């Protein structure tokens, strides 16, 4: 694993390895001194062509907890907005000795371009590209789900996958990099995914995806679901005839108070409600739902730092070997090996 560009091509073994390493990293976050020396002397550049304070500070916190030097390069107000090309920017960062580039870009595929060209040799982490993928978001979502799922079953998180978990992802799938990354990763981890959306906000071709599709939120809840992930509705969709009005959207596809009550009525007492943030309270999610004990919104933010620490650590610590492909049959044993490796490397610093 030299780069983290998408979850579509992330193997089960690598996914489990990142999640297990993130568990180790989470333990660091609970210490009094929340810092490891693992990436001392390494330079991580946060290259953001699109505003995203949340993702940027999450990566910044992750890199700093690993003792890396962090450079934040916001494309707005820089030479990039004056017409400097991605190529020149990448070559500039390469010349400055960047070891990893965390890139957020409005154009789908921009991280792939950085990784595939000879413009820069650094490890590339996709922090969200256009409407393509946002792999660390999906990994932090999976991390959050896995902890919940393990707790329910009284088993350890480490080494576990998400077999049998039923996940509904609801909202603007068409324009959502979060939905795409989640669909691929949840498939890899063995969960059953249902996308719930108005037909206008599903891509042509969604029929080929490894998931079910529903136009009916209530029916999806009634069939039973262990996690409901609500996607943000972007402002620019609201006047483009994807749906008639925000009120109609909210009634048919939003997670409102009635649906929050329905979870209780349906006996789904352990179902969690997720949202990648930032939320449109009252549109795709009601305040009562967002603030209920079922909500994992803040846990997702917290877990984001651990997952991003894990990604940075695994890409920069030098061990870029593919783990053994036997993880699907023997997750427990192989994951133990990885967490031991993470331990021993950390202790050696």
């Amino acid at each position, binding site marked *: 694993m030299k780069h983290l560009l998408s979850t*579509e091509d992330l193997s089960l073994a690598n996914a489990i390895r990142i999640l297990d390493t993130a568990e180790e990293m989470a333990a660091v976050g609970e210490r009094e001194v929340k810092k490891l020396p693992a990436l001392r002397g390494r330079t991580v550049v946060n290259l953001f062509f699109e505003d995203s304070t949340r993702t940027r500070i999450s990566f910044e916190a992750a890199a700093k907890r690993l003792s890396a030097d962090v450079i934040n390069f916001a494309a707005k107000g820089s030479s990039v907005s004056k017409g400097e*090309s*991605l*190529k020149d920017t990448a070559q500039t960062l390469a010349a400055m000795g960047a070891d990893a580039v965390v890139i957020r*870009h*409005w*154009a*789908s*595929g*921009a991280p*792939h*371009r950085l990784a*595939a*060209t000879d413009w820069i040799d650094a490890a590339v982490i996709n922090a969200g*590209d*256009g*409407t*393509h*993928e946002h792999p660390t978001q999906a990994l932090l979502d999976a991390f959050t789900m896995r902890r919940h799922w393990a707790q329910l079953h009284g088993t350890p998180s480490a080494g576990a996958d998400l077999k049998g978990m039923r996940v509904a992802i609801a909202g603007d799938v068409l324009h959502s*990099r979060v939905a*795409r990354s989640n669909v691929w990763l949840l498939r890899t981890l063995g969960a059953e995914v249902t996308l719930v959306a108005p037909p206008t906000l599903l*891509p*042509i*071709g*969604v029929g*080929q*995806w490894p998931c079910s599709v529903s136009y009916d939120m209530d029916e999806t809840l009634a069939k039973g679901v262990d996690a409901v992930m609500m996607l943000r509705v972007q402002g620019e969709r609201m006047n483009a005839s994807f749906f008639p009005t925000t009120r109609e959207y909210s009634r048919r596809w939003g997670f409102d108070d009635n649906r929050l009550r329905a979870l209780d009525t349906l006996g789904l007492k352990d179902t969690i409600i997720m949202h990648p943030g930032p939320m449109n309270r009252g549109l795709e999610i009601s305040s009562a739902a967002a603030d209920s004990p079922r909500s994992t919104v803040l846990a997702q933010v917290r877990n984001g730092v651990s997952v991003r620490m894990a990604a940075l650590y695994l890409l920069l610590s030098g061990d870029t070997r593919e783990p053994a492909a036997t993880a699907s049959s023997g997750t427990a044993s192989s994951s133990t090996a990885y967490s031991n490796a993470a331990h021993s490397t950390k202790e050696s610093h």
Partner: protein
Amino acid sequence: MAHEQQDAARTGSYLIRGAAILGGAAQDLLIRDGIITGRGTDLAGSDAADGATVIEAAGLVALPGMVDIHTHLREPGREDAETVETGTRAAALGGYTAVHAMANSNPVADTAGVVEQVHTLGRAAGWVDVRPVGAVTVGLAGEQLAELGAMADSRAKVRVFSDDGICVHDPVLMRRALEYVKAFDGVVAQHAQEPRLTAGAQMNEGDVSAVLGLTGWPAVAEESIIARDVLLAQHVGSRLHVCHVSTAGSVEIIRWAKGRGINVTAEVTPHHLLLTDELVRSYDPVYKVNPPLRTDSDVQALRAALADGTIDVVGTDHAPHPSEHKECEWAQAAMGMTGLETALSVVQATMIETGLMGWEDFARVTSTAPAVIGRVADQGRPLEVGEPANVTLVDPAARWTVDPSKMATMGRNSPFAGRELPGKVVATFFKGHPTVLNGELNTPYRHGSHPETTGPAGAN
């Protein structure tokens, strides 16, 4: 034609020995002063062949010089991408003796002045016939008709009109254009793309775009315009040409229209005969083109349609771009691919080596039919005595690996880079003069002392 005959005076004589004419039996062709003066077996001993330069062509296929109905030469305006000189060198190397230069230059070729400039540059270069295409609307803006008649009457004798790159989407304007060009036997070549359905479109809309998160260019945006236009052409009794057909659905509509006797012709590009949208998974903008690469079932339908005549011609849509327009994010990249120097090989690979066509059919779709559509009287003619000597010699057994850095076009944006392709142009005769010999550029044809050739004529 008087000056054409005058031009032809000094081209000398050539004896092409033992070429398979249109892939058939091996025969000799004798060329003298721009005209095919002999065809038969063993002309070498004849008096007529005295003093002729002999070209041994055993194993080679002789074809009528190829005619491209769809080329972007970029001049005037984007000489950093291509010039008439470099683009027509590429054309000659690709086996062409005529190209239709699309109107989306800067300034747009929407006046007699601009089309005459392009025509003059083409004559000065001397590698092929450059037939300017006139814009349908002023500035390609889709609002008012350009002076189509003035362009038709100009020295460039424009017969093909197109806003290519942009669709003439206003149905009234399209109707008027189709009607108006009847006055001078013109044709409207439509870039079929419904603009509202393709706002921000980046690639074919389908399974791959869904995964890649790139805005889709749905097949229906092409098909709905073609359906409308064939009905308009029928209604006003005019001639329609559909540029770069890319979908299976478009093929069905055109087949239906031809069945009803509608005067429509259609073109397919080499890249749409070979490549699919699976290549976009790389996010490499060398695969970004308009219309976009489609699916394998579209590719198969296009091949079948070219073989059965539903699609009349291969047009390259040669679209060179400077590398900075491709070395960037997909969404930022320019659309288009080079094609002049690979067209023959790609058509051989996709149509001939698959058994769908023979070389006779190849001559029809790359020379005869495009010359008829463009009303180019002295191109696309049979290889017979008395005909103009526009001849391409091809080695069908050759294999070569595409290397854009070695091409004559200034564009390095070939989607076939690194691929091994069959077939190589060995020689191209333009008006009896070898512009290409031994697979390399020779010298350009020198037009006679016509007033048009003052200026840079002879410089190269």
